[in-house]
């Protein structure tokens, strides 16, 4: 099977490749929910902040409306799943017991800080677990399209949208490229298939250091 992946699938697949070793992983809504289909690491255990550890895809016939993820999509138990209340779930997140959070973002600034919960001018009436994940997960991976649907730049010098946290993320995976964040600076470390460095530069406002494979400088 050699199906051409959509932009979102391409991003999800690249994130899945990053999840090596025994890991507790929390997936945000949107592109992150596509990650599991590319995972073949049995030591990745998925955590959902509404109170469950150990998540599998569910077959249509087996849907139970009371087993859902944070996006309220139906999921299934695995052999070593457990359930817990919301305070315990966020205790896990804030307490540093989740290894990786994969999150969507509206904007990223050039220090690696993200905005993913509110848009100025609209009602700011929802935040959910975004801020908790940002301060608590050991590693944060952003999975997002490089540009908005209207082709606006999302990786900016500064976010116009309110920040989710003062903590920079660790990695940004888009349909154009992969960036790593070190000491509040962005490093372009990979280009996605068919994308040129020039295209990344044209569509990114933030400063970044190019550090593609074979160009390691630190």
């Amino acid at each position, binding site marked *: 099977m050699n199906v051409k992946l959509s932009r979102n699938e391409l991003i999800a697949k690249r994130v899945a490749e990053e999840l090596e070793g025994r890991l507790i992983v929390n997936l945000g809504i949107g592109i992150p929910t596509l990650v599991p289909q590319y995972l073949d690491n049995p030591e990745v255990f998925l955590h959902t902040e509404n109170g469950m550890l150990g998540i599998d895809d569910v077959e249509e016939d087996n849907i*139970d409306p*009371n087993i*859902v993820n944070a996006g309220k999509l139906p999921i299934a138990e695995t052999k070593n799943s457990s359930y817990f209340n919301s305070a315990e779930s966020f205790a896990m997140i*804030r307490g540093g017991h989740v290894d990786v959070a994969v999150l969507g973002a509206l904007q990223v600034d050039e220090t690696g800080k993200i905005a993913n919960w509110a848009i100025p001018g609209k009602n700011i009436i*929802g935040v959910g*677990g975004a801020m908790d994940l940002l301060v608590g997960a050991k590693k944060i991976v952003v999975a997002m399209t490089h540009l908005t649907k209207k082709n606006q730049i999302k990786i900016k010098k500064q976010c116009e949208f309110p920040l989710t*946290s003062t903590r920079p993320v660790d990695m940004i995976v888009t349909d154009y490229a992969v960036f790593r964040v070190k000491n509040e600076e962005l490093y372009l470390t990979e280009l996605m298939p068919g994308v040129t460095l020039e295209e990344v530069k044209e569509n990114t406002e933030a400063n970044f250091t190019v550090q593609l494979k074979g160009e390691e400088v630190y």
Partner: protein
Amino acid sequence: MSKIIKDVNQLLREQLTDGQTILVGGFGLIGAPLTLIEELSNIDVSDLSIVSNNLGEKGKGLGKVLNQGKISKGIGSYFTSNPDVGERYQKGEIELQLLPQGTLSESIRAGGAGIGGYFTKTSVGTDLAKGKDIRVIYGEEYVFEPAIKGDVAFIKAYKADQAGNLVYYKTARNFNPLMATAAKYVIAEVEHIVEDGELDPEEIVTPHLFVDAIVQSRYILTKEGVVPVEREIV
């Protein structure tokens, strides 16, 4: 004296008064006390403050009560799930207190645990920490959050025994065990009422000392949405 109450309407009329703070369990409709919410829509009460992750969905669950104009304040983390909330907020018809979901749940736990308030790193440096106290502990910045308590809690559990011990079902657990600890009067809506001794002491999630009244669920969330059920009380 049994905690099992058959006349839910009368129970709510006895326990609810204008201006109260009500804790309502559930993550959207999952684990929401749908029967109690439905009965709330039949009761003449106003100016309620509702502590709940969401205010239901459009016209459903707490969304129905919202549209009756009974809710003057919402304390939650994700009101986005019901567009009617944003609309009322815009018109100044409802006050909203938005908290990160971890802070919402932790504050309710604190309320039930006799903790006055606590320090969390969540939201430090963001718009949601504006005006809140910051304290440096072991070199890191934390924001102060006060405990949340309610006058009444509406919670949803799976089973109750006669004493009022509760167990939950899957991810319908969510905020319910926390809210069961944090209100003066706690009403648990359950799908099954069993005899004492049928619940394993090791698996009881909410010990009976937290529960004041038990009512039988008459509305259940299924794949097809919320449906009424008829079941006899034991």
